[in-house]
């Protein structure tokens, strides 16, 4: 068996070297609007020691044209939704007659928010995603109806809030009161779910850079969320993507906004600590 297994590895190595030549992450630099250089490859955060040495944005795993679309706000279809959210930002809603701007002034004041979410909320005693915080504002400050977790209004607003932090490094806290949630997310990341028994790590840690059928596997970083996907021509939230991935393991998925996905988001975000915020990014 030792011999056959070794032979197997040899063949696998050969297949990789002679297989699809475009499988490595592309060596390229993401410059936004010809003025801002984003960090898309950097040293992995300390908690990934022994697991990954370098963290790489999903941008490097996409084709030339897709990468180019993200470099200019006029070419990035995700920015259309940012503009729509900008209007909503300034429009009063709810019983209090307030808009986001009533308390926060211009949307640019949100710079620095996206990089640190999900984040522990002391008053609520829980780790909150950006979506949860937005709905808290709507319900408790504006007296407005909460938005659907992955609905258009919500994902557009997260795109606006991300967009003003582009270029800032992801920096979610994983210690202190957030630690137990982070541990839960880590456990889920390594759990092999569904009839196909696949974990996040099977594809995005052990096989990034490899092709699975026609798909080029990335590290599954979420620094670019929400993501404008050419596949469905709209913005997609991280929880929507988690749901799709887990569904594709032939599993019963978790719901967007569930405790499980909040924990997973914190953990996956922490694997990208140091990469620039890119949302709204452009992907397949």
């Amino acid at each position: 068996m030792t011999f056959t297994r070794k032979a197997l590895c040899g063949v696998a190595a050969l297949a990789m070297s002679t297989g699809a030549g475009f499988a490595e992450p592309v060596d390229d630099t993401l410059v936004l609007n010809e003025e801002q250089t984003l960090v898309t490859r950097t040293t992995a955060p300390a908690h990934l020691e022994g697991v990954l040495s370098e963290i790489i944005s999903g941008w490097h795993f996409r084709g030339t044209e897709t990468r180019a679309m993200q470099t200019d706000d006029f070419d990035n279809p995700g920015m259309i939704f940012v503009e729509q959210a900008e209007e909503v930002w300034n429009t009063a809603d709810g019983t209090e007659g307030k808009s986001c701007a009533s308390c926060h002034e211009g949307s640019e004041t949100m710079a620095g928010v996206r990089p640190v979410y999900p984040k522990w909320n002391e008053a609520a005693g829980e780790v909150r995603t950006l979506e949860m915080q937005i709905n808290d504002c709507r319900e408790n400050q504006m007296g407005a109806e909460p938005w659907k977790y992955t609905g258009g209004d919500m994902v557009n607003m997260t795109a606006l809030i991300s967009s003003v932090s582009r270029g800032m490094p992801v920096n979610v806290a994983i210690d202190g009161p957030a630690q137990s949630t982070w541990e839960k997310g880590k456990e889920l990341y390594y759990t092999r779910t569904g009839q196909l028994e696949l974990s996040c790590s099977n594809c995005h840690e052990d096989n990034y850079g490899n092709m699975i059928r026609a798909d080029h596997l990335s590290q599954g970083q979420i620094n670019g969320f929400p993501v404008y996907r050419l596949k469905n021509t709209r913005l997609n939230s991280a929880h929507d993507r988690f749901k799709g991935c887990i569904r594709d393991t032939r599993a019963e998925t978790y719901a967007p906004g569930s405790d499980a996905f909040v924990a997973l988001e914190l953990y996956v975000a922490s694997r990208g600590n140091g990469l620039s915020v890119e949302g709204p990014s452009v992907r397949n």
Partner: protein
Amino acid sequence: MRRCLFAGAVYAVLTMGVSAGEVSPTEVKYEDGAIAQSLTGTSGDPAAGREIVGDKSLGNCVACHAVTDLADVPFHGEIGPMLDGAGDRWTEAELRGIIANAKIMFEDSMMPSFYKTEGFIRPGNAYTGEAADDSFGPLLTAQQIEDVVAYLVTLKE
């Protein structure tokens, strides 16, 4: 997808005639990860196996494994070892065991277990994202496993 699998299952039952001699997923006996006896009691059909290996809605083996013989099927993956020469490297019994449940021979293998019905975490109803229901069965039928085995033994260097 479900219809294709179903059609495959019907096809398998029709071609087998009866499934009386079939070994169910929970009765399979592994020896060092290999399965000595045919799961159906008969030999598989290599032509049907070739179809299953390349078909996205059946085995979809090429999602992870490249196979020169299936060059007509686009987009072969590179997750697992190339299948060229599989018939030289493995015995029929080993191939049957690896396809049915590769994790018995290779504990941490990423490869899905194609003839297994128990022990899953949050098993779903195919690709719907919903929980599994009474229709839950193995990824491939016994006949389909045998067809794939029959095809893979023909892959010689």
